[in-house]
């Protein structure tokens, strides 16, 4: 018996209990503090950008192109480019991701092949974003000769978002009660009819939440589009999918690190960063609230 335990033995039961309660109260306060740190970090970043950036954001800023070698003017081409990239990426990833989830959840039987598919999807989720950029450069831009273009960017971001969509779609399919499947099959429907008429409609809202999360992630990414789609500056709005484009995240990076006059363009940087987080956090908040409503209605 250790000396500490011996000492504990001699304490009256009530005081021993009191000390355990005190230790627990302290520890729980600490846990709570740690949790609060996260909230503070979020509030700090968002609050800082709002305070510094809101003055820069006005109608001109949102509706004009950059001027005077990007030291004045607005960010319209960047906003347009970012939205095009994000929606394009979802156009690629959403159908593929939903199909993969349907296969994994409805058709596949547990076994080696499914294990390998799942392992690759998990690994795909862990591939660094800059490596997706390298892949996009080597495969889409150079090998398939797409050039630095909106299309190459969408495909690269689409490949990157695939695991997010698959995960959300599988969760949505899993939440459809087994009785739906049994009822449909008992009425004589085939597997495909069951999936198309019963499961997909029931799971669609959950899948769309995943789609919105994927959208916001694609909109905020920088590294995958640096070599595949985005350029420093282009005076015209994108006209075709083979045009190179400007994008918000890359614009922020360029202004903050490589601009001709970094200090002078600070207000533009704050403004662009504010618009980007408003876009990204807005989509996320929408998805979170919608998902909470879905869960409550179930």
């Amino acid at each position: 018996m250790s000396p500490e335990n011996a000492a504990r033995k001699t304490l009256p039961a009530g005081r021993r209990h009191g000390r355990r309660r005190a230790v627990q109260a302290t520890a729980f306060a600490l846990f709570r503090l740690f949790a609060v740190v996260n909230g503070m970090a979020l509030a700090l970043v968002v609050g800082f950008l709002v305070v510094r950036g809101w003055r820069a954001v006005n109608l001109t800023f949102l509706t004009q192109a950059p001027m005077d070698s990007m030291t004045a003017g607005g960010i319209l081409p960047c906003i347009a480019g970012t939205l095009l990239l994000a929606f394009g990426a979802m156009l690629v990833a959403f159908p593929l991701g939903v199909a993969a989830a349907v296969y994994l959840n409805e058709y596949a039987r547990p076994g080696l092949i499914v294990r390998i598919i799942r392992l690759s999807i998990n690994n795909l989720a862990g591939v660094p974003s800059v490596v997706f950029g390298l892949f996009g450069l080597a495969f889409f831009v150079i090998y398939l000769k797409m050039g630095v273009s909106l299309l190459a960017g969408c495909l690269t971001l689409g490949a990157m978002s695939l695991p997010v969509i698959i995960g959300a779609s599988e969760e949505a399919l899993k939440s459809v009660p087994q009785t739906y499947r049994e009822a449909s099959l008992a009425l004589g429907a085939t597997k495909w009819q069951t999936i198309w008429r019963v499961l997909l409609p029931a799971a669609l809202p959950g899948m769309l939440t995943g789609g919105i999360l994927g959208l916001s992630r694609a909109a905020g990414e920088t590294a995958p589009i640096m070599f595949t789609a985005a350029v420093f500056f282009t005076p015209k709005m994108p006209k075709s999918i083979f045009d190179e484009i400007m994008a918000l995240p890359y614009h922020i990076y360029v202004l903050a690190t490589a601009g001709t006059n970094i200090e002078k363009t600070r207000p533009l940087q704050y403004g662009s960063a504010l618009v980007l987080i408003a876009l990204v956090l807005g989509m996320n908040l929408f998805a979170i609230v919608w998902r909470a409503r879905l869960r409550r209605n179930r």
Partner: protein
Amino acid sequence: MPGRQAKEKIIRRTFFVLASAGILTLLAIALFLFIEGFPIFRGTSVQSFFLGLYWYPTSDPPDFGILALMVGSLSVVAVSAAVAVPLGLATAVYLAEIASPRMREIAKPVVELLAALPSVVIGFFGMVVVAPFLQQTFDLPTGLNALNAGLMLAFMSVPTICSLSEDALYAVPNSLREASLALGATHLETIVRVVLPASISGIGTAVILGLSRAMGETMVVLMVAGGAAMIPESLFDSVRPMTATIAAEMAEAPVGGSHYHALFAVGAVLFLFTFAFNLVADWISHRFRQVGEASL
């Protein structure tokens, strides 16, 4: 009805092909990294590539030693782990075991929004707020260093560590908690002695995936790590992680040149690092999974 069955079979096969897109993408990524990265070993020996101390890709003759880059990546990951692991784990324990349902409804979206912050915005924050702060507080020549990068990376890995650990804690059967409480243990003792040990495999996976994410993060380290390709001697030294090197130099590396191949080789090394992290995480989650309630 043979027609109907044939149709079902075709549909089933189609779905299988579509589901293989994940495997195909992963294979294509690996293939292109190695095809484009391998030619670097025609001009540089394997040893001088991995153990070389000097990264001077544009001098003549160029030096392609990535040791300092690898150490740079590992050092920022270590700093971020020191912050993110306790923070993420404590938050997960709070959310899963201590918080009231009401608090959880507020705190969980906060963590999810933290995960959604674009990395370029976090990097920007590190540049304009944290860097000047560090520079003044510690009287440094520059605030762009390994410490700053590690702190900003912690932002990115806390949500991963937290939400995956939380899932692991939820998976612990309630009967274990009840048994512990019934034996007279306090709530805290139950968490530390029963719930955490029972969920250790899930927590291990969470930590590894969080660190893997920090290692692959690009924009943050590109903007705040300082960018000097040297082995750091202190937290306040500037470093140049692998991801930052690729992102900073790819634009000016001529396609097909040795610099271009060297950067793809760095990408391949990075890919192998994160691939290994993920395999270990997968192995842990299968090997040490809590099976039933008797295996404690």
